[in-house]
């Protein structure tokens, strides 16, 4: 079974292809490093249960 790091790397490569981003993995990979920070922060938010009825916050005034 793959380590989580490999999952993130594989995901990034495939998602970058999907969006046509000229990203190629490198030894000192800043994109992967930044992605893992996002991943860690997102996990703490996903672990925090919110009511289904909670409205998200971006501004929209029709």
């Amino acid at each position: 079974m793959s380590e989580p790091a490999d999952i993130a790397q594989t995901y990034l490569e495939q998602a970058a292809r999907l969006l046509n981003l000229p990203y190629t993995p490198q030894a000192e990979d800043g994109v992967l490093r930044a992605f893992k920070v996002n991943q860690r922060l997102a996990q703490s938010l996903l672990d925090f249960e919110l009511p289904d009825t909670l409205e998200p916050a971006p501004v929209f005034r029709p």
Partner: protein
Amino acid sequence: MNAAALVRDLRSGDICAVEYIEGLLARLPDLNAPLNAFSKITGERALREAAAVDAARQRGESLPALAGVPFAVKNLFDIEGVVTLAGSRILAKNPPATSDAHLITQLRQAGAILIGALHMGEFAYDFTGENVHYGPTHNPIDTSRIAGGSSSGSGAAVGGGLVPLALSSDTNGSIRVPSALCGIFGLKPTYGRLGRGGTFPFVMSLDHLGPMAASVADLVLAHNALQGPDPHDPACSGRVDYVSENATDISPLRGAILGGYFEQGDEAAQAAVAQLAQALKVNARAEIPHVALGRSAAYLMTSAEGGQLHLSRLKKNWHDFEPAVRDRLSAGALSPAAWLQSAQRFRRYFCEQALPLFERYDFLLAPTTPVAAPPIGTQTIKLNGVDLPLRPNLGLYTQPISFLGWPVVNVPVYLPGRLPLGVQIITAPWREDIGLGVAQYLEQAGVVRAATPAAL
């Protein structure tokens, strides 16, 4: 000279606007050279606007609130005839803007005179002001140190006494951080207070615009002049709440020091808050619930929304970005939608949990940055004995507050023998008047001051 004093002298005829601006323009290149604050000086235009002020006075017209006051803007504001750079090389190829940003027009209508555009971190994704394309902006108090970002040129220009007033943006702390590190005053208004039309965005859910100044009186003058509806900004409320230029009685106000999360910085940052608390007779302590998660959500939204905004440029101009900016934008553009949406939903919850604090307190005090201005090139800072990357952590204390959209006044505090530090005076949404009132009191009591040299 601060703006309020300058306007008095212009009204009385002691100073002629054209002569004053000519003198400033003559000194500006030498003043700017050690700081690298200005990216463009709009001299011809400034002289034209100054002549109009003098002509109005000669006709016997009453001069508006900021008549003759020179100001400059972060280079993400559109200036007619000037290319809007937003700190990037990529946008340098764009044609010049065809009109002024909304807030420039607001200040122009109050009689202020635009002097030029100021350097900033690339696409505002920065807290240091170390721009790889245009060179670092230097701190006017010690030029070997960073000015802070992303409104680095604004901090250096006001702190160095080049202009009394600058307009800037603050997505996660970009007004407050350079204000703190350069020892000046800055106002990040309530989210939706000021119109953002004609400025290059970064994260629209979080972008605020506001003034930086060398005195509280000037922040108040600017705040009063900048408000009003902006048809080009759907988030702009159009609300106008004027703040008195006279000192207000702060004795009925209830304040508290923010604890917990906001106590990770070095001792000096805590001492700066303690000094203000003592002057304000504030003893209470308060905590914002879930504040670390609030910062995480702001961080994610910045990366994901900013990444999507720049997606086409990432495809076309991959090698023209500053690597540190490109890495975070790309990571955000490639992040799953569920991550961004978790942040957006958490924002609502966080606001609902935090807002009741203002039933008990009228203002909250917190450090602006965990440390004073580090030397240019610094990569890490030590917090609670742990080495952490400098760039994101300069915004440790500012990021959760802008995420809440609450207004903040940064006031500069000088502890003996130390570089200045900033303290955030945080108030409820739309209550800029309270924060500015407390800042006015502290300035008049001599507790806070800007160490701006008398270059003007």
